[in-house]
């Protein structure tokens, strides 16, 4: 079985490297500041051998967006959930992790397209499914939709 790594233990290890990065944790997930995301992700990949990015998804909460990264280590068969929040502003922004995992390329474009979160440092940040010139981001809760929009 893929073993979930202990959230508190990973949070402690990250804390030794980057004291201000972690904002919280639970049993299987850690929460980090979005500014520290790339630094934490690099630590997870290089020191804890999270070689495989299973998925990136985003959740639209009332106060903020939350990005959820599911990470797996194929080498060691363990997993971890990494979460970060970004404020709802003109264009919400978080660092891209494409430089670490190529698999993030389409996933970040997916989130950018449908949830409207920009990934700083992405090599080709274009909509993935909707066409250029499409207005709005369909998976946001305030998206009104409809052909006439």
């Amino acid at each position, binding site marked *: 079985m*893929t073993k979930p790594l202990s959230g508190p233990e990973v949070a402690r290890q990250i804390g030794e490297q980057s004291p201000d990065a972690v904002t919280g944790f639970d049993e299987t997930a850690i929460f980090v500041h979005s500014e520290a995301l790339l630094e934490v992700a690099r630590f997870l990949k290089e020191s804890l051998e999270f070689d495989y*990015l299973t998925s990136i998804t985003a959740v639209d909460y009332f106060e903020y967006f939350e990005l959820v990264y599911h990470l797996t280590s194929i080498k060691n068969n363990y997993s971890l959930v990494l979460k970060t929040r970004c404020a709802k502003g003109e264009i919400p922004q978080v660092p891209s992790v494409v430089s670490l995992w190529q698999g993030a390329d389409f996933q970040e474009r997916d989130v950018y397209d449908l949830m409207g979160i920009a990934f700083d440092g992405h090599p080709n940040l274009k909509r*993935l499914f909707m066409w250029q010139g499409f207005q709005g981001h*369909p998976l946001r809760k305030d998206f009104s939709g409809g052909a006439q929009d």
Partner: protein
Amino acid sequence: MALKTEPLVINMGPQHPSTHGVFRMRLVLDGEVIVDMEPIFGYLHRGIEKLAESKTYLQNIPFTDRLDYLASMSNNLAYVLAVEKLAQIPVPERAEYLRVIMVELMRISSHLIAVGSLLNDMGAFFTPLLYMFREREKIMDLFEMVCGQRLTYNYMRFGGVSHDIPEEFIPALKRFIDAMPGFIDEYDQLLAENEILLARTKGIGVLPADKAINASVSGPVLRGSGVKWDIRRADPYSIYDRFDFEIPTGTTGDIYDRYRVRIEEMR
């Protein structure tokens, strides 16, 4: 005087919906070699995720059939497993076995189409594909027996499946299981050493293991690159921890390896 050359950009697709999903590739060619490619998606994006927000959990099951209509059972299962996990719904043992039977038949059926279409695209026009359709037909007959549908099954339910299997299912399944290895041998005789197949797949489209992992590739493609990773073994869901099975892998990660992995996974 050296001849001045420059790369040629061409659009491949969008393809017709009845081929491989509507999809366009922007290719950069240097002579006959593709040196760069940008995939362009979205022609068939149906917004199922958005639709699902306004439906009940149960109403969403038929949508999952349509995520990949060659693997409807598997998508049914992935969705009901997620809802069962959220709502902590137990599943009776008999239903667990039925689910595994159906998704493994689905795997064979999907691999048949994958391999048949590959050969089709390489110029073995329709003969191999029709051989494989012959066997896939038997699987579709089995599915029709259990749920009345041949493509979009809507078979899984939270806590089980929609119908128990009818009496004639097990004998028909046994006939299929007895016959299938012979058919795979037949494909192998026709194809495994075929000069054209080898020339067009060996050493082509090589995806090394480290790149495959870094690119989040999964399933037979990842295994084709030599990574012994099968989620049924690495992190078993349903009752997969009760079964012993081989995990075939490739060595070089070329098209031929991905083809072999699919052939071996059907055995």
